[in-house]
């Protein structure tokens, strides 16, 4: 399991991370506060995405983790709006969190933690302390070894990486959007008619196509300035969508898709070949004519792809 191997390592640095309550305004301890916050953010995401229970996950736990993530995102957003230019000393920590949130928006929701393994691989001073992330880095090496990810420029990782994959992935998104009609009312009636006990899940699944569409127009804005625009609202939306969907469609493990954007551009794509966007398109095509809730076929394919990914990655 993902956190257990590195537990000891994490404990060693525990006191440094959580010994005292650090306020964001302290100068020298600002980095450790940011570090702690980032670690908690990572842990929270892992909890939401890597959980694959046989039974329904606890709503209370999910809500609390979700609140934690939202709070951290709010904080980051506020900090971002206060300081448009980052001082060089704190750049690694901040750009880490910046690019963390920038990358998700243009891609489909499973990619919201996607940028982070790539980015963390390039911030060497921090990786030693972030055990959950460092574990991901071990996998990350095999996926993100392409020259498109220069370690020296962590801040610039996401934008150059994004445009090439954007094409293949965005075309996949186009296909998905065709399946998901924009009018939520039609979806609501069809879904509500078929399964009333599942009213909650249909509500959440309605959010997804909306979220996907919201993400697209923001691509161009994100490409422009690095520290500037944080489309927090979008990524928050994704996050919420995903977490609630994860409660309800818990058999889908989207953690494997974290690596998709990295791999489709890298030379080590051979390992991930079966999960190319083309395959996604092919498998989605037969479902386009069905009057089923659009998230359903998407999820069923994710399960299959998920299974393939598992076999390849050997987890």
């Amino acid at each position: 399991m993902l956190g257990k191997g590195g537990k000891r390592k994490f404990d060693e640095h525990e006191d440094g991370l959580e010994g005292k309550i650090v306020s964001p305004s302290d100068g020298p301890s600002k980095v450790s506060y940011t570090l702690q916050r980032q670690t908690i953010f990572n842990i929270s995401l892992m909890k939401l995405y890597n959980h694959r229970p046989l039974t329904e996950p606890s709503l209370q736990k999910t809500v609390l983790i979700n609140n934690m993530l939202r709070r951290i995102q709010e904080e980051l957003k506020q900090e971002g709006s206060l300081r448009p230019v980052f001082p060089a000393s704190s750049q690694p920590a901040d750009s880490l969190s910046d690019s963390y949130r920038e990358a998700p928006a243009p891609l489909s929701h499973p990619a919201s933690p996607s940028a982070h393994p790539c980015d963390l691989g390039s911030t060497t001073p921090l990786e030693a302390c972030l055990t959950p992330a460092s574990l991901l880095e071990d996998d990350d090496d095999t996926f993100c070894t392409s020259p498109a990810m220069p370690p020296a420029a962590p801040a610039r990782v996401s934008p150059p990486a994004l445009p090439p994959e954007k094409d293949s992935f965005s075309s996949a998104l186009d296909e998905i959007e065709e399946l998901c009609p924009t009018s939520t009312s039609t979806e609501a009636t069809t879904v509500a008619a078929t399964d009333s006990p599942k009213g909650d899940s249909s509500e959440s699944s309605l959010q997804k196509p909306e979220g996907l569409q919201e993400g697209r127009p923001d691509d161009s804005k994100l490409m422009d300035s690095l520290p500037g625009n944080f489309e927090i609202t979008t990524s928050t939306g994704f996050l919420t969508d995903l977490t609630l969907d994860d409660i309800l469609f818990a058999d889908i493990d989207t953690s494997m898709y974290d690596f998709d954007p990295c791999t489709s551009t890298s030379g080590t794509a051979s390992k991930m070949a079966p999960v190319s966007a083309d395959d996604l398109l092919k498998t989605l095509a037969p479902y386009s004519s069905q009057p089923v809730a659009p998230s359903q076929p998407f999820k069923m394919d994710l399960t299959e792809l998920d299974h393939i990914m598992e076999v390849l990655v050997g987890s």
Partner: protein
Amino acid sequence: MNCSDESTYGNKADIISTVEFNHTGELLATGDKGGRVVIFQREQESKNQVHRRGEYNVYSTFQSHEPEFDYLKSLEIEEKINKIRWLPQQNAAYFLLSTNDKTVKLWKVSERDKRPEGYNLKDEEGRLRDPATITTLRVPVLRPMDLMVEATPRRVFANAHTYHINSISVNSDYETYMSADDLRINLWNFEITNQSFNIVDIKPANMEELTEVITAAEFHPHHCNTFVYSSSKGTIRLCDMRASALCDRHTKFFEEPEDPSNRSFFSEIISSISDVKFSHSGRYIMTRDYLTVKVWDLNMENRPIETYQVHDYLRSKLCSLYENDCIFDKFECVWNGSDSVIMTGSYNNFFRMFDRNTKRDVTLEASRENSKPRAILKPRKVCVGGKRRKDEISVDSLDFSKKILHTAWHPSENIIAVAATNNLYIFQDKVN
């Protein structure tokens, strides 16, 4: 921080998930992860063996809930018994409510110590007799037999909860009870299984806006119109069912202002209330959050009247406890019969008692190595500083897989039941 896997020593299905004495204390029920209920009965104290106080022996065992499969969501519904609540005894039989995540059941537990003999149409083994061979008629008589305790499901209250049931509470009118899940509370009549009233609904129209869930609920012990429910944000709401059919608007709102000096990333999570209990008097409520137990006066909403630190030494470990999910453990708390002592569990099989009058507290351990029958429990101490005394245990050696989440206190005597993973410990106050 150690996490030895105690559950591997025994069957996972044997993990006790709830403990409850009945109203007289004669019976003690436990529910486990495998959906079973085991009821213990206290031995009648005999005049011959005065020194041998009434011990609890197994009275009845039955399978209350079975695992189910929700085909719509493709998820299992656990058979784990979340709560058991007894009904007050009204005749020779005993009644209790047991619930898993989705279904509440009313069980009747009754004794049979006589059986009819001398049927006309059946012989002693129950085989039908040939009517041609019957020449005389006789009246069957009841003859004593070995005591048999049978449990039968009398009512099944199903399909009323979309989310996981966390609490059930019998009303003081003995005609109704409530069941609470993460977002809704339903009121049932014992006689009606196909309908329930929804009395609290905190589900937002847009699930994206959900930030708070219901964590526990209980009826007032004397006022059948009053109940409380706690939330994941550390608040308690008291509702009056006479005010309106849907009690979304509370009558009283209990919340302690946050202590700014203790603020951390985990402030919200550790403020989530895992259990709420009215005192026997009905004047106070006790709440358990991750690090403390608080006693509130119903007449004062702005802060608790008493706060007890259960294991404050964990405050500096919250990040690790968040990572290994221990921060989400739901500890219960109980009052003693006179509301003078409160008890709750902790890690390393420790449990804590707080005397509200003397302000003294004690930490005890429920473990086989440390408790021989009739041995006196030795107080334990967790050392937080650098120097560890001989008998103390350091925070880093605590076993976080050995957690005491469920405890119960006899309604009138100083007898406590403590569930430590798959083991049940019953401790009594030593006489003379």
